[in-house]
């Protein structure tokens, strides 16, 4: 499965805002659904999402079942030097997802 898809601009001028967009594949099971046999599907949602810019935390989300399935986040970070944005998310079951995007600052 494509765990995630990311979009950042091709290049950003220093000190300007980089628009970061990420779409993550995750069912975000609320725990309130039942399957075809009538059994409750256990809760398993992403509980934390973090974005680091060349290792420094710049944005994070404490997530719960109130965020829709296949979460989408769009946010802005300040362009410093060129480098990498690292994304990490962890769900209730402890599964960890990661992704990266290169940022070019001119």
């Amino acid at each position, binding site marked *: *499965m494509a765990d*995630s*898809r990311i*979009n950042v601009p091709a290049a950003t001028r220093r000190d300007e805002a980089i628009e970061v967009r990420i*779409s993550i594949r995750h069912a975000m099971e609320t725990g309130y659904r039942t399957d075809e046999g009538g059994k409750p599907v256990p809760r398993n949602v992403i509980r934390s999402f973090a974005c680091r810019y060349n290792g420094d935390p710049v944005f994070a989300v404490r997530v719960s079942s109130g965020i829709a*399935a296949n979460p*989408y986040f769009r946010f802005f970070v300040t362009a410093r030097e060129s480098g990498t944005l690292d994304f990490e998310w962890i769900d209730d079951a402890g599964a960890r997802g990661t992704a990266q995007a290169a940022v070019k600052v001119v």
Partner: protein
Amino acid sequence: MPSCWRRSLRQRSGFIKASGLTRRLLRANSHLQIRFAGALLGPVVALLLISAVQAQQRALPLNVLRSGIEFSGSDVRSMQSDDLANPGFLWVERGEKLWNDSTGGSSCASCHGDASASMRGVVARYPAFDAASGTVLDLEARINDCRVRRQKQNPLPRESDDLLGLTAYLALQSRGMALAARIDGPAGAAFDRGRAFYSQRHGQMNLSCAQCHDQNWGKRLYAETLSQGHGNAFPAYKLEWQTLGSLQRRIRACLFGIRAEMPPPGASELTDIELFLAWRAQGLPLEAPGVRR
């Protein structure tokens, strides 16, 4: 009257049956009657043939066709129009990976190469009659047929992420192209069955598809606006499902909604309906991946 005209008229429209005069003329076996009838019949049949081919007895003429996106709210429209925000693309990427995956022996790419070239326009023509299997196949069945016959692999279950991924990836290669499924020749019987199903009442609510989607589209059903019921945006990410799903799933969902028995996924009746719907939506552009509420 040439027998080929007779067969094609019966297939394409029901209205040749209506005229008693025509029936009598067709049954005429007297040489004199045929010659006399021929003088009248010629222009009449020519007109019927032209109008049958062009009008096709459509409940919704081609110029009033509207995609379901026009009956959707701004939430759905904004999600479908943004390729990053559109969750369907998560499946498109999965499909692209699978297309090139040869761990099972051979990949799809090993025969079909670059899908953006070889698969361009293909999904817009589905469902389609497949000579090798002698039946009309929808896209999912076609993919599985290839997997089993040619790749010697197991078929993918309907609504599995893998099969949805492949159908989403392939549908993307026909994005924006006009639906153009064929209903002539060997596809005719499936088309007729699908058309009959569409017009029959079903379920505890005793409703036919036509009652909502031909006769009452645009009107309110509780807080929703009834669409024309086209399948030009499938597989679609349906917000209610919180996942991508096929047109067959959507048809089954509608049947559940009118309290009718749902044929199992993959049932031939569902393919018959898909074919009828594809003809009915002829000319509408394929939206891929679709987003619906």
